């Protein structure tokens, strides 16, 4: 009985999620975030964070090098565009595969260690990738400038199917639908929903339970006849594939791959997204990713003029005082807001924004009705 209810509630969750994602342009319009590029970023970094959460949220392995797979995905996708076709499908597919392949390689070595030693190993691999991509590997990565498309690229599949982009620089298109702007967002959104569904299946599977067991007690697992290493590696590879996919999508919506995508700060960003949203929850990482990207793109855009306008209802001296304080936190000060936000969240809501939602829900429920205790769900993974 419980099982059936759960299955239904998952379906509802998935449908709500899909609806919310697809309605993103409308929902986010009033917040100033309803434009294609940011929507695409929400979806793509949502995917990245969902994947990272499968590793970190379930197994507890804190990787500080996942940006490397994101970068590898982007480079793969751009190279696929250059060599094969401007269709996003092969690009995304190959990006996912290569992300997974590199994850298998790096994961195999790094998972020989646990705890912070594991974190440092992944960090080391990612930083090596970044440093080399920026300098020595420039023939492959085009270094600082980033890998770009050229008119003269071969694109053998496109040529074979008789597609000619003429004199302009081509952009990625799915059988004639241009992948920039809103169509690009809907493509990413569809992938995001799919990824969310996959992650949900993993969370609700015996495999997912095993991953949580890895986090809980590896020793017990070993003496229970379970080999922890392949479980952790599988989670690492899956999250690497998610990262590769996200990197591929970045290139699909904007065909340029830069090395700084692989820097440790980028790896740190996805950690922050996951924790901010709620580690080990299904929805949290997506929300965390959205929050950080929103800050980065919207808060940084406030400048003194906008502030002066906002506070123009105040008397002039007060207006200037308020603006000078506020401008510490927006525009060039948006990092400050972000840092303060991390602290506030961790101090007061260790479970991330999802815990806030949950607490709010509990509060609301208590007020609304008191129809007996709700059943404790056996799966704590939410």
């Amino acid at each position, binding site marked *: 009985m419980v099982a059936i209810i759960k299955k239904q509630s998952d379906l509802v969750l998935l449908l709500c999620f899909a*609806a919310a994602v697809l309605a993103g342009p409308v929902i986010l319009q009033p917040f100033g975030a*309803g434009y294609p590029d940011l929507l695409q970023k929400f979806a793509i970094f949502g995917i990245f964070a969902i994947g990272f959460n499968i590793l970190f949220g379930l197994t507890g392995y804190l990787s500080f090098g996942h940006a490397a797979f994101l970068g590898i995905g982007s480079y793969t996708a751009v190279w696929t565009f250059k060599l094969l076709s401007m269709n996003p499908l092969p690009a995304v597919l190959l990006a996912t595969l290569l992300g997974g392949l590199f994850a298998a390689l790096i994961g195999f070595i790094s998972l020989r260690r646990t705890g912070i030693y594991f974190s440092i190993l992944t960090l080391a691999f990612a930083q090596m990738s970044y440093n080399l991509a920026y300098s020595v590997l420039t023939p492959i990565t085009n270094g600082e400038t*980033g890998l770009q498309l050229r008119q003269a690229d071969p694109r053998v599949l496109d040529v074979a199917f008789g597609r000619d982009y003429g004199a302009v620089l081509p952009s990625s298109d799915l059988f004639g639908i241009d992948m920039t702007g809103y169509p690009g967002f809907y493509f990413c959104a569809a992938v995001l929903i799919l990824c969310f569904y996959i992650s949900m299946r993993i969370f609700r599977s015996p495999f997912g339970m095993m991953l949580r067991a890895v986090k809980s007690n590896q020793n017990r697992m070993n003496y229970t006849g379970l080999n922890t290493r392949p479980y952790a590696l599988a989670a690492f590879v899956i999250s690497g594939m998610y990262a590769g996919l996200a990197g591929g999508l970045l290139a699909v919506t904007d065909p340029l791959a830069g090395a700084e995508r692989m820097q440790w700060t980028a790896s740190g960003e996805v950690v922050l997204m996951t924790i901010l949203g709620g580690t080990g929850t299904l929805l949290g990482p997506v929300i965390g990713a959205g929050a950080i990207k929103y800050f980065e793109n919207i808060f940084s855009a406030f*400048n003194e003029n906008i502030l002066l306008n906002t506070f123009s209802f105040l008397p002039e001296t007060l207006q200037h005082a308020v603006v000078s304080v506020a401008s510490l936190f927006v525009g060039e000060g948006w990092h400050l807001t972000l840092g303060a936000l991390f602290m506030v969240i961790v101090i007061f809501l260790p479970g991330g924004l999802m815990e806030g939602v949950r607490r709010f829900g509990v509060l609301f429920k208590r007020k609304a009705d008191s129809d007996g205790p709700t059943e404790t769900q056996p799966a704590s993974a939410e």
Partner: protein
Amino acid sequence: MANFTKVSRRSLLRGAAAATTALAAPTIFTSKAWAAGYTNEPKGSTVTLGFNVPQTGAYADEGADELRAYQLAVEHINGEGDGGMLNTFSSKALTGAGVNGKKVVFVTGDTQTKSDAARASAKRMIEKDGAVMITGGSSSGVAIAVQGLCQDAGVIFMAGLTHSNDTTGKDKRANGFRHFFNTEMTGAALAPVLKNNFGTERNAYHLTADYTWGWSQEGSIKKYTEQLGWNTAAAVRTPLGAGDFSQYITPVLNSGADTLVLNHYGRDMVNSLTQAVQFGLRDKQVNGKDFAIVVPLYSRLMAQGAGENVKGIFGSTNWHWSLQDEGSKAFVKSFGQKYGFPPSQAAHTTYCQALLYADAAQRAGTFRPSGVGKSLEGFKFDGLGNGPTEYRAEDHQCFKDVLVVKGKENPSSKFDVLEVVEVTPRAQVEYPASLLGGELGPYNDGA
């Protein structure tokens, strides 16, 4: 997910309805509101420009100075303030009544000096804020990345501080324009000054930031100094952001080289120069000659960070506030009065770019990228602080005199760190457009 278990059927239906609206949304939004026009064609009484500058990261101060200059430029174009260089500008199309009858407004973004972030903020300004032109930036990687984006989106890009050849060479685009000079010009301008000061028999040791701009700079200096008869002892690549460069500097000490060329910019330049001086290179004698240090690309803002270490060290710069032509004086005056200190070269080039764009749009009578571009192509002007200048049609690169500067021995204030040694005339730094390769391609006006 306890709170989702109780979602009612009704809310589910609501969700479905929202989803339908969303699916319909793309047709609303992409119904080519600008059909037959061009990207972000201004319809109202204002025209929006996008200022994309580094507000966080190592170049944040430079970015802040750029932003100040842009604000000043907007004021002047809209007829506020003292008019600055509009009064000295050879083209008199702008009258202080905005552009094409529209008042200029602006939006800002943070490039973070990262290609991804720069493109994201440029996209926001294009897609959300309706910017018809993007300008700014403080590094070549970002400039090239944003230039490519603007080409695809169908808006004009007026590059900020970008010194790599590639911006108007290998990676040039029809929609992109650069006022700043490049490594090729630096090489051509510096070489004769180096010859006069250090002779033709020098053994040069290069330390080069290990990325595209560094290599470009190293290549140009090598090319022109070797033409003078200099020998290149070694060219060593250093990681970007190395911090401590001592491990690259000590090999110079006993290498037999008598000249050190630091192909670094920003913090790398500050650190490598400070440390080179610390290792006694400025006071050293090799082969009976005084050891020389050269910093090909100077930035006054950054030179302040190196303090007294810049004294006597040669380099090139796009512009300096101590210039005495009417344009420069007018600009320094209005900038200094507004902010209390003199503008940097980054501020100057971005101010010029904003003015040049506005002027071109005014002369073209439209903001359509191809229209503005055509009126910029081959445009000859004067009065913007660099003497007679031309926007070359073949590669959208400005050609003008190049300043060779030297760290000042007795600065009168903390802004007064460089002195102009020579103004290398434009003819000497000009090169054929074909030299650097690349294709402009056609203008893109957007859909």
